[in-house]
């Protein structure tokens, strides 16, 4: 009885969504794409198994995303060092299990709410992952390990693993003491304990299981991306919780089934894939997935209130699935309508080029997109732009490329968010005969060579030269003497490294300049604010800050202003985004190295179309200009907007 209606309800949503997307997009209802959806839901589904057990026991586990990153690095590191895959996998799983057991032990022995314990583990494991890897992705994995992300009889190994795990988890939950005690502990811990259930021991086992699942997910994801990065899996704990909750697992504990979670994960995967297929702007994804999540819980609550009452009859029995169905239809219809309203859908241009930046959260990518769109329109082709929400979500970008392959786009313009992790995706595009052109960021050549992935060209700034320009300019401004702090981009990123190294080479000729600190702020403005605050505390004599992009420069600028030292500390950024230019104009910021993202977008589209139309291959490397913008030339670069 338990959870039956809830599972039917979620199954109903899933089937409804699949049907809807099938009608709305010709690329959705194909065997390949459906396997694709399953593959893309796999990691979430596996983490969801652990979360299902934990949540049924009335607990929570926020650490699985971080544990996933740590385990992935352990596996990748051992493999890269030449150890056997069996050993690497075993140790990776062991690390996951260990982290989970620590969660369980601390929670039970310390009598600490699991929310706190696992929040702690989330931070600790993430930090451990960064330390372990030196904040750089690890790649160079043997071919044999890649088999885990291959096919068996046309079915992806990932899908097979998920199926096996779910059958097993279902049996454990329904047929074993561990499963039964999980329900009893979540339903009434006090009663279970007084009935002789060794509550503590089983809780430890449950958290251990959740950690182990994170380990399994890590092994599979590392194989899929052919690399591991300390930044993978951010937010994944929340997606896994969402999958379980959509699947009818009650956060109050004592209720739920793993099969519900599987359906929940598939619903989330279907939504993302389907919305991609409809070219819905990725910013809308969260709205749809979030809406479904909240709707699922509202209905769950309604079901709970109904429990004590008499069994419902008549149409009321169908009320819940009906409401869910309507909500899902409305969400998707809304998304479709937005898409229909925003794009010219009357005549399909013959060629479709996809533009996949790291994210669409900054003017830099925005300018690139706009110029690309203008060029596409001029050339009479269709440009599709899709991006992950965060620049660090490598796996999401990977999925977007998979989806674009399913849609049979004609070419992909890619700004890879991981120089190693995206290589397998590029290789898949190659296999499908879709040319890939890189914008802004290069990929790791060794990683590409190891799987035979090919890109046609790199179109982007000379980042090293840009850094050097900034370095020389600052040296001149400071008269060759002073204390400088560097705020770096994500370590291990090719762009970040080039800009930093370029900057250091630019100031090499001035021995009086000292770099007193060099820290990362992950490209983000808010992080840079915090980093700068700390730098200002630690270095009262600071004269200048070089930030590897303007977002971070602006974050630092605000922190400096808040500390009242804006007249003492000069800030130089990179990218020359409008916000930075305004600050240069008003004299708050010293300068910024301009790149020409619009040039990248325009050239990217032009070269792609030339190749497709006339078979003319682009040059291997197209370097776009870099130029230092300061108060003297800012108005020439971009005239102030009339007010």
């Amino acid at each position, binding site marked *: 009885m338990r959870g039956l209606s809830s599972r039917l309800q979620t199954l109903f949503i899933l089937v409804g969504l699949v049907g809807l997307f099938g009608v709305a997009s010709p690329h959705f209802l194909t065997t390949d794409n459906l396997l694709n959806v399953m593959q893309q839901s796999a990691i979430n589904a596996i983490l969801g198994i652990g979360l299902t057990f934990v949540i049924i026991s009335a607990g929570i586990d926020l650490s699985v995303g971080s544990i996933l990153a740590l385990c992935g690095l352990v596996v990748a590191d051992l493999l890269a060092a030449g150890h056997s895959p069996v050993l690497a996998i075993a140790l990776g799983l062991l690390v996951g299990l260990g982290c989970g057991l620590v969660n369980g032990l601390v929670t039970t022995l310390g009598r600490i709410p699991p929310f706190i314990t696992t929040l702690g583990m989330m931070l600790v494991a993430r930090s451990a992952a960064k330390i372990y890897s030196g904040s750089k992705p690890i790649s160079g994995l043997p071919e044999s390990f890649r088999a885990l992300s291959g096919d068996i009889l046309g079915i992806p190994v990932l899908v097979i693993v998920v199926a096996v795990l779910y059958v097993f988890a279902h049996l454990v939950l329904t047929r074993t*003491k561990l499963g039964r005690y999980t329900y*009893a502990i979540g339903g009434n811990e006090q009663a279970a304990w*007084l009935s002789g259930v060794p509550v503590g021991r089983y809780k430890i086992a449950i958290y251990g299981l959740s950690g182990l699942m994170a380990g399994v997910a890590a092994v599979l994801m590392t194989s899929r991306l052919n690399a591991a990065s300390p930044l993978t899996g951010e937010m994944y704990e929340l997606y896994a919780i969402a999958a379980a909750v959509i699947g009818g697992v009650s956060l109050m504990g004592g209720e739920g089934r793993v099969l519900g979670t599987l359906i929940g994960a598939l619903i989330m995967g279907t939504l993302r894939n389907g919305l991609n297929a409809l070219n819905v702007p990725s910013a809308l994804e969260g709205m749809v997935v979030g809406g479904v999540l909240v709707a699922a819980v509202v209905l769950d609550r309604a079901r709970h209130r109904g429990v004590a009452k008499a069994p419902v009859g008549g149409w009321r029995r169908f009320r819940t699935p009906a409401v869910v169905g309507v909500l899902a239809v409305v969400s998707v219809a809304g998304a479709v309508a937005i898409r229909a309203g925003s794009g010219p859908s009357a005549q399909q241009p013959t060629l479709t080029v996809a533009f996949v930046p790291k994210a669409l959260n900054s003017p830099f990518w925005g300018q690139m997109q706009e110029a690309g769109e203008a060029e596409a329109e001029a050339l009479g082709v269709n440009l599709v732009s899709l991006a992950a929400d965060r620049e660090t979500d490598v796996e999401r970008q990977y999925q977007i490329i998979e989806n674009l392959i399913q849609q049979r786009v004609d070419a992909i313009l890619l700004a890879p968010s991981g120089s190693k992790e995206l290589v397998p995706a590029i290789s898949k595009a190659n296999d499908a005969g879709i040319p890939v052109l890189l914008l802004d960021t290069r990929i790791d050549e060794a990683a590409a060579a190891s799987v035979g992935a090919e890109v046609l060209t790199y179109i982007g700034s000379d980042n090293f030269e840009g850094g050097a320009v900034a370095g020389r300019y600052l040296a001149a401004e400071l008269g060759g003497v002073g204390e400088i702090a560097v705020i770096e981009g994500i370590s291990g990123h090719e762009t970040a490294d080039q800009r930093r190294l370029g900057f250091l080479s630019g100031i090499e000729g001035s021995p009086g300049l000292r770099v007193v600190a060099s820290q990362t702020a992950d490209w983000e403005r808010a992080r840079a604010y915090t980093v700068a605050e700390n730098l200002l505390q630690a270095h009262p004599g600071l004269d200048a800050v070089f930030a590897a992009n303007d977002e971070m420069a602006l974050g630092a600028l605000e922190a400096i202003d808040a500390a009242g030292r804006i007249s003492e500390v000069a800030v130089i950024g990179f990218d020359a985004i409008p916000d930075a230019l305004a600050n240069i104009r008003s004299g708050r910021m010293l300068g910024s190295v301009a790149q020409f993202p619009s040039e990248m977008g325009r050239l990217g589209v032009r070269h792609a179309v030339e190749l497709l139309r006339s078979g003319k291959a682009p040059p291997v490397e197209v370097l776009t200009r870099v130029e230092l913008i300061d108060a003297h030339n800012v108005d020439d670069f971009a005239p102030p907007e009339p007010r």
Partner: protein
Amino acid sequence: MTSPLLVMSGIDKHFPGVQALASADLEVLPGEVHVLLGENGAGKSTLMKVLCGQYEADAGEILFRGSPVRPTGPLDAERQGLVMIHQELNLVPGLTVAENIFLGHEPTAGGIIADRRMAAGARDLLRRLKCAIDPGLPVAKLSVAEQQLVEIARALQRRARLLVMDEPSAALSDAEIEALFAVIRDLVGGGVPVIYISHRMPEIFAIGDRVTVMRDGRTVGTKRVASTEVSELIQMMVGRTVADRVPKRGVVLGGVVLEVDGLFGPRIPEPVSLSLREGEILGVAGLMGSGRTDLARAIFGADPTDGGTVTVAGRTLAGLGPAESIAAGMGFLTEDRKQQGLVLQCSVTENISLTSLDEVSRAGVIDLGAEVELARTEVDRLHIRVPSLDQTIVNLSGGNQQKVVLARWLAARCRVLLFDEPTRGIDVGAKAEIYELIGELVAQGVAVLLISSEMPELLGLADRIAVLHEGSLQGILPRGEATPERIMELALKSTA
């Protein structure tokens, strides 16, 4: 004679399975401390909750200051001047004294809380109670006695015209009780009569003007304290006819199976020693707060103890908790089946097998067929009326829920069973069935420790009755010597 301030007449209140109040009456005169006395479950608290708006009466009438009232909730009652101070105080520990006193009635100036006015107001109110607590202190820093004064001050702030105090002295020292009495006398002198609920005989004689005794939801009678005595009150509290008795089966007792030796802990201040033989029923009597449940939990290993041993069938427990006790052959039917007994979202089968999963599983895998078999055996034996074994527990009646918990312990084949109020909140038919079952169990040689607030239950079933008062064992009465009066004397410690 002055006309009464409050008249409650013919108050009925029915809860599922229980008639809590059956035409109860109460009259309170202006300017008196009126004591409400009765055994556990006699209906004192229910009657007061009806008065103060927490429950709505099924029938009956309340006249307050000459006009009929029918409070729709505690706030409504408060507005009419009827305020109750509960045993568990209702203060917010993190807020200050003044904030607690004015909670929900904060004086404001333009939407901003007027802190100074509030502090001054609080100080005035506390001064009326002759106490000098700093209104700016957080309540968490106060002693229980001080917190009680804050509650009283709050009641005064609400302009209480009648104050109900439920066992206010339970957690106070003698000196603090004296101080409290002084405050009560002042209140009464100032025109606020007090209804005082207590079990403590000496207090009744110290503070009460009149006393009303309740039993089984009815009012037995009202006496002037000055013209009554302890034995008369006890008689009124327990006075039952022999017809109430529960039949006792003759059982031949076997060897000692439970031995408790010098057990004490945080809530059992004096060491308790007792033993139980196969086939024996040891009743445990005592009033609310006498530590009966604490004793059972300590024996079962559910609460930590500071010393003493528990031996079950020759095996001395190491204090590892319930799992160990169960392995040794002990079972514990808790008082509160919903909070501590049942897993409400689970099915009948799953609840019954919870303690016995080991018996029906191999290598951690449950044999579902054997499990259902196990559950079915007990369901049949206890005549549990369920549409299906897969039925979730939530939807069962109280009596059937209780039988499911019982079934769990029967399935575990315990040799010693601790029953804490096994018949609370269930209907008469189910009660009789449970008595029958307890009789069967002891006939099979199981030893039973039976905690009950129902005197006939204890007198009818038990071979001996242990009586507790404030966590200490007052004595164990053999069946022949156990009379209601004797038990109540020990429970009230009125002869000590």
